[in-house]
C-alpha cells in the first residue's frame, strides 16, 4: 500500500574497458539506445506517479528499459539520475531490503535447497518475526495461492506454474508496500500463462498493494494493468489506461505495438476542404468524425501527407467498388468465429478481420487467395500520424 513517484529517472550504463562509444558509420545495434560520453542510456527521464493500490504495467520490446526501470525501483540497479519516492520518502540510496518491496522474478528465483514452506518463510525469518506469526502468514498465503499441499516439497518437484505461485507467495507473505513483477509469466506455456494471468487478477483483488508489472506481452499489459506505460529505446512512449492507449495511440510505435493483429498503416493524404478534414488513401476518401475534426482544428493541423492507421477489425468490406480501397487476398486464416485476410493493397500488407457469421447465424461469403476485396473504414476509427510518427490529434 503505497504511492510510488518516479521523477526524471535515468539509467546510464558506463562504457566498460573494451567497449567504447561507437564510431560514426559503425553498424547499428538491435536497439537504438542513446550512447553518450558517459555511457549507454538505458532509461531516459522516466516520469511516473503511481497511485496507492494501482496496477501499473510497463510494456515494450526487449531492450526498451522496462526491466531496468523495475530493477531501479527494487534497488538492484543504481539510479543514475532523477528521484524515486516510495510513500513520499526518497529511496534512491536505500538498500533493497529497507525499501519494503517484494519482487517476483521471471526465473522464479526459488531457493532450491529449501522447501516451499521454508522459501516462503525465509523473508519473515530474516525480519525476526515470531514463529507462530510466520506459520500463520505462510499458511494464509499458501491458501490464497492454492499451494498448501506442496508446502513440504522442494522447488524441483514442482511444475513451472506451481513454482511461480510459490515465488508470488514468497513475495506476498511480507505484505510489502509495492509488489514488483518482472515478466513472471514468460517461462510458462500459453495455456498456463492464461490461467496464471487470471490468478494474478484474482490475487490483486485479495491483497491490497501497489503493483508494478513488467512484460513484453501486450495481452498481459491490456488485461492486467489499470494503466500501461509503453516504452521504447529507454523512453516512455505513452501512459494511459488500456482503453486509452488502444483507442488513442500517441504515436506510430504505440499504434503498432498495442493490438493483435497489428494495426494497418497506409500512406495517405490529410485534406482540409472548407474547414472539413478528410483522409484520402488509394482512391478512397473518408471524412473524419466530429471528434477528430475538433481535435485537428484545435491543434491547427494543416493538410499534409500522413500515415493512416486502421485496426484490422475496423476495416469494413464493401460489396460494391466505388469509394473504396481495393486489395487482393493473399492468405486467409480461419480463426473459428472470424477470418483474418492478409491482403495486398497497392504494395502494402493489410489485415482484415471478418466475422464468419452474421447476427442471424448466416455464413458470410468467404474469400480465397487472389480474390479482390473492396475495403473502407469509418472516419471515427482511423488514426492520423505525421511523418515523424506523432498522432496529429495529440
Amino acid at each position, binding site marked *: 500500500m503505497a504511492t510510488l513517484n518516479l521523477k526524471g529517472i535515468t539509467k546510464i550504463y558506463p562504457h566498460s574497458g573494451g567497449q567504447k562509444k561507437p564510431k560514426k558509420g559503425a553498424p547499428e545495434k538491435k536497439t537504438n539506445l542513446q550512447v553518450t560520453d558517459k555511457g549507454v542510456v538505458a532509461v531516459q527521464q522516466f516520469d511516473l506517479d503511481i497511485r496507492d493500490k494501482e496496477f501499473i504495467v510497463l510494456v515494450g520490446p526487449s531492450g526498451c528499459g522496462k526491466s531496468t526501470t523495475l530493477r531501479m525501483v527494487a534497488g538492484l540497479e543504481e539510479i543514475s539520475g532523477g528521484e524515486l519516492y516510495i510513500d513520499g520518502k526518497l529511496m534512491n540510496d536505500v538498500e533493497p531490503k529497507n525499501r519494503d518491496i517484494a519482487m517476483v522474478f521471471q526465473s522464479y*528465483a526459488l531457493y532450491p535447497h529449501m522447501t516451499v514452506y521454508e522459501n516462503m518463510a525465509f*523473508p519473515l525469518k*530474516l525480519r525476526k518475526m515470531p514463529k507462530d506469526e510466520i506459520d500463520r502468514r505462510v499458511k494464509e498465503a499458501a491458501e490464497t495461492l492454492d499451494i498448501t499441499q506442496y508446502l513440504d516439497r522442494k522447488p524441483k518437484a514442482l511444475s513451472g506454474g506451481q513454482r511461480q505461485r510459490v515465488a508470488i507467495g514468497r513475495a506476498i507473505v511480507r505484505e510489502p508496500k509495492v509488489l514488483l513483477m518482472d515478466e513472471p509469466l514468460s517461462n510458462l506455456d500459453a495455456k498456463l500463462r492464461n490461467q496464471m494471468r487470471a490468478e494474478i487478477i484474482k490475487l490483486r483483488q485479495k491483497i491490497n498493494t501497489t503493483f508494478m508489472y513488467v512484460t513484453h506481452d501486450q495481452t498481459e499489459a491490456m488485461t492486467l494493468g489499470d494503466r500501461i506505460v509503453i516504452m521504447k529505446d529507454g523512453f516512455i512512449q505513452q501512459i494511459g489506461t488500456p482503453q486509452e492507449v488502444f483507442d488513442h495511440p500517441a504515436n506510430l510505435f504505440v499504434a503498432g505495438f498495442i493490438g493483435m493483429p497489428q494495426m494497418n498503416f497506409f500512406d495517405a493524404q490529410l485534406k482540409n476542404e472548407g474547414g472539413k478534414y478528410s483522409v484520402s488513401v488509394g482512391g478512397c476518401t473518408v471524412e473524419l468524425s466530429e471528434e477528430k475534426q475538433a481535435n485537428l482544428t484545435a491543434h491547427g493541423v494543416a493538410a499534409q501527407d500522413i500515415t493512416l492507421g486502421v485496426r484490422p477489425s475496423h476495416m469494413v468490406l464493401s460489396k460494391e467498388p466505388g469509394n473504396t480501397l481495393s486489395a487482393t487476398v493473399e492468405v486467409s486464416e480461419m480463426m473459428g468465429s472470424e477470418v483474418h485476410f492478409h491482403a495486398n493493397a497497392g504494395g502494402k500488407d493489410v489485415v482484415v478481420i471478418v466475422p464468419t457469421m452474421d447476427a442471424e447465424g448466416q455464413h458470410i461469403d468467404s474469400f480465397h487467395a487472389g480474390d479482390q476485396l473492396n475495403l473502407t473504414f469509418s472516419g471515427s476509427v482511423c488514426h492520423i500520424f505525421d511523418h515523424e510518427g506523432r498522432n496529429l490529434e495529440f
Partner: protein
Amino acid sequence: MENKRSHGREILAHVVLIILAFMCLFFFYILIINATRSHAQLQLGFSALPGSSLVTNFKNVINDPAIPILRGVLNSLIVSGCCAAIVTYFSALTAYGIYAYDFRLKKAAFTFIMAILVMPTQVTALGFLRLITNMGMDDSLLPLIIPSIASPAVFYFMHSYMQSSLPKDLIEAARIDGSMEFSTFNRIVLPIMKPAIAVQAIFTFVGSWNNYFIPALVITSKNKQTLPIMIATLRGADYMNFDMGKIYMMITIAIVPIIIIYLLLSKFIVEGVTLGGVKE
C-alpha cells in the same frame, strides 16, 4: 545379427572394464595382503594369500617409539581436515565476490588469481620458508594449513560452478527478501555449492594428506610430523633393521582415512562431475 553384434560389444566393454578395475584395485589388494605378512614371509616373494602377521605388524607399528604413528595420523587429519574446510569456504567466498559483484578491476583480479595458478609451489618454497621462519611459525602445523586459503585452482572451479549453477536472480531475491550479504552467502550460496564443495574438499584432503614437500621443509620435531614424512623416515632407516611388514601396515593405515572420506563423499563427487552440464 544386430543383436549379436551389440552383445559382443557389451562383452568386450566388460572385459576392458574388468582389466582396468583389476589394474586399479590390484595394488590395494597387494598392499593389504602384504600388511598381513611378516618381513620373513615378504622376502620369500609374492603371494596372493594373506599371512598371519596382521596383529603383529600392527602392534609393531603402534608400539615403535621412534615413529609415533597415531600422532602422525592425528597431525595429518588436523592438517588435511582444516585445509579442506578453509580452502573450500574461502575459495567459494572469493569466487562469489568475483561472480556476484560488479566492481572496478574485477577482470584484473580474476586474471591475477589465474596467473598464480601457473606458479609451481617449488618456485615460491624458499620465500615461503623464510617468511614463516621470520614470523616464528616454523615447526608448526599452521604453515601447512593457512596458505591453503588462497587456492587459485579451487577458486576457478568454484567460479565455473557458480556460472553454471548459481543464477544471479537468487542472490537478488535474497537481497530483496532482506538478507545481509554474508548471510546470503552462508544460507543461500553455500548450500547450492554443496556438490562443488564436496568435490574440492576431497581433492584438497587427499592432496594435503599425501603432501610431502612442504611438511618436509617446515616440520622438524617428531610429534608434529605428518604421515608421509613418517613413512619416508621409516624407509630411510637402517636397511638391516628394515621391517617390510611394518612399512606395508603403515601405508595401509595411511590410506584408510582417504578411502573412508571417498566413500562418504562419492555420491557428491559423481554429482559434482556431472552437475552443471545439464540445465534443469
